[in-house]
């Protein structure tokens, strides 16, 4: 498999695909990826510079950390102030600023905030600390939601009543509809997120092609994977087709992962969710079902954070919609750098601003 990964970085194959893309791109087209891992892959491997002038590769709201609304981060921070609470989350969430603070700053101030690799580690933490309340801050798209569902099911099975989840999970397909309907954005095709598609399969995106005539290709993360996805989109557009296709076939089955989807459906139900930069998109959240209310931190703790406020000057919201490029923000590279980040798109290693700053010369 290691050899295989090397194969997906093969320069000859990449060059072959760039030639094919150049042939297919007979008019200006805007393609958007909606996955932080794609954002990083495109920047890190310099794929934007390999594109013919007709193709623009935009980054959309694909970084779950970045799209988390201030209101939700503020609520997580407020929970760390509750007596006896241990807040556990993925490392990516630590530095993200809410309206007034970040989890990292709260930890420095003595609150009990812990980084876990797997949500099951947080369940074990609850078993190890029976006198404490362990709250897991659940962030992520469909890729991550099954793992959080399993954590809740495991806690329920083990009878752990000191474990709960604050769910700020989001789902991708309807967010893409919001982007398609945004006249400022005008996307010609979507580079669909590979590992979200591992779970949901190609079907849930089909409406984009059928209703809006916008094609999409579920794409992997090695350079040859990304170029293959771009080529399949350019070819569809050249031929006047709009279909949902899979380039990343070693990672995405025709039906996705039905077991993982069943766990999501067992524990969560669709809800409205607030996306930074986009606003509330109906049906794109995952709320914990009433049957599992005992493990829902939003119900267990009665906390009200102060009203949220936005970060002055930060254009993360516009960057997430693809209407502003990172280096077009006045703060980019000056007041806002990965060492001293101001907004979430620079804080998260998968944020568009961080990826542009680390791997490209734009705006320098």
């Amino acid at each position: 498999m290691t050899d295989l990964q090397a194969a997906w970085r093969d320069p000859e194959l990449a060059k072959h695909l760039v030639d094919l893309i150049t042939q297919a791109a007979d008019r200006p087209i805007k393609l958007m990826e909606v996955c932080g891992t794609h954002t990083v892959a495109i920047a890190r491997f310099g794929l934007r510079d390999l594109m013919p002038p007709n193709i623009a590769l935009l980054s959309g709201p694909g970084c779950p950390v970045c799209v988390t609304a201030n209101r939700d981060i503020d609520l997580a921070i407020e929970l760390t102030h509750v007596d006896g609470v241990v807040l556990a989350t993925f490392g990516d969430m630590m530095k993200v600023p809410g309206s007034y603070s970040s989890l990292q700053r709260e930890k420095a101030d003595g609150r009990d905030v812990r980084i876990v690799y797997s949500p099951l580690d947080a369940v074990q933490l609850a078993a190890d600390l029976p006198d404490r309340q362990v709250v897991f801050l659940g962030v992520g798209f469909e890729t991550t939601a099954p793992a959080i569902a399993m954590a809740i099911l495991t806690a329920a099975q083990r009878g752990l009543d000191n474990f709960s989840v604050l769910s700020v999970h989001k789902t991708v397909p309807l967010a893409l509809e919001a982007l398609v309907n945004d006249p400022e954005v005008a996307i010609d095709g979507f580079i669909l997120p590979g590992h979200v598609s591992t779970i949901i399969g190609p079907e849930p995106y089909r409406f984009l092609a059928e209703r809006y005539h916008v094609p999409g290709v579920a794409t992997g993360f090695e350079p040859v994977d990304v170029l293959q996805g771009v080529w399949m989109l350019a070819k569809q557009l050249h031929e006047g087709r709009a279909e949902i296709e899979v380039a990343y076939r070693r990672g995405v089955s025709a039906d996705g992962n039905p077991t993982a989807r069943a766990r999501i459906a067992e524990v969560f139900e669709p809800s409205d969710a607030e996306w930074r930069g986009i606003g509330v998109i109906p049906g794109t959240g995952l709320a914990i079902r009433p049957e599992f209310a005992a493990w829902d931190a939003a119900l267990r703790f009665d906390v009200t954070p102060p009203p949220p406020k936005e970060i002055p000057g930060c254009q993360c919201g516009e960057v997430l919609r693809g209407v502003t490029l990172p280096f077009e923000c006045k703060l980019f590279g000056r007041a806002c750098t990965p060492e001293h980040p101001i907004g979430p798109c620079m804080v998260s290693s998968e944020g568009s601003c961080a990826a542009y700053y680390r791997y490209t010369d734009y705006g320098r």
Partner: protein
Amino acid sequence: MCLAIPARVVLMNENQMAEVDIHGVTRTVSLSLTPDAETGSWVLIHAGFAIQVVDEEFAKESWELIKQIEWVDGDPAEVSA
């Protein structure tokens, strides 16, 4: 955040847990989301869970296929490169 890395299942334990090899590093992960995974399977790991069983032969095949793609549309745009 949606990063998932390939690993090989080396040992199945109880409760659908398994030891996997990730580039020489051994980790314990849950196979509860991939009931088809068995010892020797290549899986994609995300947040402590296998989320997909990877068909290695299929991966090789699709790579070979890309190599063979040629423009067959009959009406390609002019090559500007």
